C-alpha cells in the first residue's frame, strides 16, 4: 500500500494517541489492582494487645449493651398499672420543703468585698464557652434580686484557655410560678477586655468597682455603674 507524504504524520499521531490511551488504561487498571497504601480513614488498624482489664471491661460493656436492649424490649411488655394507682404512688417527702422561700440567702464561704462578696460557685456556663475563675455577687430589692459578676477568660475554638479576659454580668430575680418561687434570669451580658492580658480574677471591690487581676499580674477595674473596664 502506498502512502502519501501527508498521511504518514497523521498515522503517527493516531498511533501515539492509541499508545497514550492504552497507557492511561493500564495505569488505571494498575491503580485498581494496587490501591494506594496510604492510611485510609476507614482502615481497620491492628489493635495493640488489650490488657486483661481492657478485655474484662469490654466484655462487661458488651453485656451491658445486651442487657439494655433486652430491658428496652421488656419495658414495653411490663404490665402497666392503672393510672389511679400510679397517681397514689407518692414520692418520698423532701427534707427541705420549708426552705423554698422567695429570697436569696447568703452563699456560704463568701469573702466580703464592697457591697457584696467574692465566691467560688459553679458558673452557669460551659467551659466550651467561658472559663470562670471566681465570682462576686450582691443582693438587692429585699434579697429578691441578685447580681452576679463572673470573671475569667473566653474559651478558644476547642475549649482551650485563652488570654482574652472577660467578665459576665448576670441578674437573677425570684418570681412565683404556679405558686412556687423560682429563680429567673433577667439579663446576661459579657464584657471582654480590650487588651488580651490573660484570664481575669476578682480580688476585691471598692464602691461600685470590682478589682480584677489578670494572669499577667495587670490590674484593671470593672465599673458596675458604667459597665466598662477602667485602667488604674
Amino acid at each position, binding site marked *: *500500500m502506498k502512502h502519501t507524504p501527508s498521511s504518514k504524520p497523521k*498515522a503517527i499521531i*493516531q*498511533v501515539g494517541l*492509541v499508545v497514550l490511551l492504552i497507557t492511561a*488504561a493500564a495505569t*488505571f*487498571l494498575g491503580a*485498581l489492582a494496587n490501591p494506594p497504601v496510604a492510611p485510609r480513614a*476507614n482502615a*481497620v*488498624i491492628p*489493635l*495493640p494487645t488489650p490488657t486483661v482489664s*481492657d*478485655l474484662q*471491661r*469490654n466484655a462487661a*460493656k458488651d453485656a451491658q449493651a445486651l442487657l439494655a436492649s433486652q*430491658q*428496652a424490649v421488656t*419495658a*414495653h*411488655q*411490663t404490665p402497666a*398499672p*392503672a*393510672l389511679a*394507682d400510679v*397517681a397514689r*404512688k407518692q*414520692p*418520698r417527702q*423532701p*427534707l*427541705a420543703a420549708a426552705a*423554698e422561700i422567695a429570697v436569696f440567702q447568703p*452563699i*456560704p464561704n463568701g469573702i466580703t468585698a464592697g457591697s457584696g462578696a467574692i465566691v467560688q460557685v*459553679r458558673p*452557669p456556663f*460551659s*467551659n*466550651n464557652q467561658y*472559663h470562670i475563675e471566681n465570682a462576686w455577687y450582691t443582693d438587692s430589692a429585699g434579697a429578691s434580686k441578685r447580681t452576679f459578676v463572673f470573671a475569667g477568660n473566653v474559651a478558644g*475554638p*476547642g*475549649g*482551650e*484557655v485563652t488570654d482574652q479576659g472577660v467578665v459576665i454580668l448576670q441578674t*437573677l430575680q425570684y418570681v412565683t*410560678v*404556679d405558686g*412556687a*418561687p*423560682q*429563680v429567673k*434570669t433577667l439579663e*446576661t451580658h*459579657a464584657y471582654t477586655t480590650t487588651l488580651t492580658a490573660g484570664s481575669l480574677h476578682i480580688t476585691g471591690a471598692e464602691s461600685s468597682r470590682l478589682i480584677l487581676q489578670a494572669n499577667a499580674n495587670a490590674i484593671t477595674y470593672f465599673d458596675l455603674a458604667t459597665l466598662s473596664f477602667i485602667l488604674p
Partner: protein
Amino acid sequence: MIRPDMNMKLNQHLLITLGLCLSMAATLGAARNPLNPAVTRYAYIPAVSNTNIQTFGANNTAFTFGASRYMSTTNINTLKNLGCAQGKATPAATSTLVILDFGQPAYDAPTLSYGVYIFGSYAFRSVSDIAAASEAYLNQFYLCSPAGAYLYLVVGTVNYGSGVTREHGAAWSTMINNIAAWIVDPPSIASKVTILGGNDMEPSFGGRAQTRAWVDGYTSVFTNTSYLYNYGSCDGCPYSSCPSCTPNNYWSIEDVWYVSWGALPAYPVPEIYLTNGVHADQWYRMSLYGYTNHGQAFNFKGTLTQWQACQTNGPCQYLDNTPNAGWSQLYTKINNDLRTQKTLGPGSDITWSNSN
C-alpha cells in the same frame, strides 16, 4: 498502520474497555465500602414535620428531643408540672432523654447529708430532696404521657468545687439506686421510665484526681442498672485544627476516657454546642482513642445541646447548635469511620427555665 475505520473501531473498543473498567471499579468500590450496610441499618429519619422524631439503636427506636434543665428548685409541685409537660410533649411509642442538672456537689455538716448547691440561689439541697423531686417528675411523666412513651431521666451534678469527693459519688449512686427501687415498687412505673445518674464532667471545672475519685465512689455502689452519664465537655481536647491539643487543667485524654467510658457505669452524652462541628470532632477522637488504646469505641448514649439556654441566657456565638444539628454532627462523625461506628442515643437540649 491503522486504517481510519480500524482506528474508529479501536477507539470504540477502548471506550468500551474503559467503561467496563469504570463500572467494575464502581462495583468493587461499593462492595469494599464498609459503611454501606451500616448506613442503611442505622439510617435515621430526618426531622418529620414539627414532631422532631428521629431514631436510634439497632431496633431504630424512635425518639423525640427532651427538654433538659438546670435546676434552681426542688419544689415538688414544680417538678410535677415539668414531668407532666415532658410527658405530654413525648409522642406515643417514642423515647426521650432528659437531664435534670441540680448543681454542684455539697456536704451539709449540720444535717450530715450529701447534696448540692442548686443553681441561682446556691442553697443546699440534700440527696433526699433531689430524690423526691425526681420521683415527682417521673410519676407525672407516667401519668401525662401517651402509651408507649419512654423516659430516660438523668439526675446530674457537676465536677466543680470542694464537694467533689469519693463519698459524694457513692452518695449520688446510692440515691440513684433508691430512685430505681422506688420506680419498680408496686405499682411499678418501669414500663415508661428509667433513672440514670449524671455528671457534667468538664476538665476546667475540677481536678482530674477528684473527678476520678467521685466516679470511683459512684462505681463502688453501682448495681449494673444505675449507669452514669457524663454530659460534660472535652475542653482543650484534640480536634482537626489542633491534633496535638491536650485537655485543660492538666487532665490527660486517658482521664476523659476513664470518666466517660473506662469506669464500669460510665457512658458519654457529650455537649455538642459548636455549630462548626469541633465538639463532634473532639468526641469522635475520644471514641477513637478508646478503640485504639483499649479495644472498644464509645457507645454514645445521646447528645446535649444548649439551644434553648442560648435563647434566654445568651449570647452564645457559634455555640447554639440546634438539637437536631448537634445530634447529626456526632452521628455523622462517628459513622464515617468503621472503627467508631455505633448507634447514637437520643438528643436532648438544655434550658435555664424551670417552668413550662
